[in-house]
């Protein structure tokens, strides 16, 4: 039985990562180690949740750097499972999950093949298999291609990065502006997508890797921040969305957490994005009785997990700001020793 778990995504700011809500879901039953990328990540200082915090090398440095760091952490804390919660680090953890297993560190992640199936640029093909609508999307890598795509789709269009960021452009001038804004930060290719009129609804789920959806909760964001992050939300019972989640897991044998982002429109449901991890609102699911992080840990341990997609609708989620005071010495210790 797994006792010691490491997890990343400790940024609990206005652009929150999923690590803290995942940790809140697990803190009662497990010893938790925080994997941080920055001493400014607020959860670095949540001593009532994390036994230890380690600063990690950026994923762009590659697996050798990660492996060396994890060897130290394994030696110090005997971590048995890692739950990576950030998009940028997932490809590395997915690619090297067997090497991690050999180090005595389990993960519960999809295969690279399945991970790539839900890539934004591949979603058109996957949506056909799932028999669900998907807004027409064109991949672009130059301004010329951008202009052609905008002409084909007609304004307004969504200009999206392949990993992060999406903006609605109403004319070619703003489309080009967003093209440079996103590409300078996140590179190429970009995606130009037709806009869909409807209401966004979301689902967090967990697949067992054998085609079975073991847990899920669906919600609607009632208010969001300027970055589009949930501020208030409500649980909903949307049969078509739940069926889409079941179909996705069955078609892909998805192993691990995921989030469906969909638009409910007059002519049915459109799939917009599939994130290969827990969303930062995952504690909402825990609080309404579907503790997906705990189910993931049990699956990773090889335990049987009973399906749980039963939750009350009409439960309200309220995010709020808070603060606490700690000693600067902790900040300086984390910078200098890379541990806390």
């Amino acid at each position, binding site marked *: 039985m797994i006792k010691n778990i490491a997890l990343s995504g400790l940024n609990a700011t206005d652009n929150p990562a999923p690590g803290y809500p995942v940790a809140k879901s697990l803190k009662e039953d497990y010893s938790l180690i925080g994997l941080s990328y920055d001493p400014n990540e607020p959860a670095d200082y949540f001593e009532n949740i994390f036994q230890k915090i380690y600063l990690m090398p950026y994923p762009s440095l590659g697996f050798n750097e990660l492996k060396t760091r994890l060897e130290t952490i394994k030696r110090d804390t005997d971590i048995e499972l890692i739950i990576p919660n950030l998009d940028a680090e997932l490809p590395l953890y997915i690619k090297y999950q067997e090497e991690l297993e050999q180090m005595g560190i389990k993960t519960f992640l999809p295969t690279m093949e399945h991970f790539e199936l839900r890539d934004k640029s591949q979603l058109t093909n996957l949506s056909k298999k799932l028999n669900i609508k998907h807004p027409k999307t064109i991949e672009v890598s130059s301004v010329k291609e951008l202009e052609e795509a905008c002409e084909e789709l007609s304004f307004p269009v969504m200009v999206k990065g392949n990993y992060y960021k999406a903006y609605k452009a109403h004319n070619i001038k703003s489309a080009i502006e967003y093209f440079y804004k996103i590409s300078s930060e996140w590179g190429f290719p970009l995606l130009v997508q037709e806009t869909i009129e409807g209401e966004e609804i979301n689902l967090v789920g967990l697949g067992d890797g054998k085609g079975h959806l073991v847990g899920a909760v669906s919600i609607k964001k*009632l208010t969001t921040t300027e970055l589009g992050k949930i501020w208030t*939300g409500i649980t*909903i019972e*949307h*049969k078509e969305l739940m069926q889409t989640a079941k179909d996705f897991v069955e078609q892909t044998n998805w192993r691990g957490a995921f989030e469906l982002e969909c638009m409910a429109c007059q002519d049915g449901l459109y799939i917009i994005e599939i994130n290969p991890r827990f969303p930062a609102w995952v504690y909402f699911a825990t609080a309404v009785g579907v503790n997906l992080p705990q189910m993931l840990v049990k699956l990773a341990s090889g335990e049987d997990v009973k399906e749980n997609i039963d939750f009350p609708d*009409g439960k309200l989620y309220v995010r709020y700001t808070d603060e606490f005071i700690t000693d600067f010495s902790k900040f300086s210790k984390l910078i200098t020793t890379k541990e806390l």
Partner: protein
Amino acid sequence: MQLKQLMIDENNIAFDPSMGNSYQLGGSAKDIFELIQDGKDKEEISQIISKKYNVSLEDVYIDINDFFTKLKLYGLFQ
């Protein structure tokens, strides 16, 4: 036409559990909702509301018609 399944709470808020939308029901709207859910048609609802609020049937029918148009606009008819 069938009204989407809505739940009306003690504060006269109708909640749509499939989309998470809620609607504040003012005045006679709660009565009309409940009558629709009871399977009454426009004419029957108009007669009941006309009697209950002591308003002419003609005026009530126009308002009920308008109310139905709004329900359709909000996608509350399936």
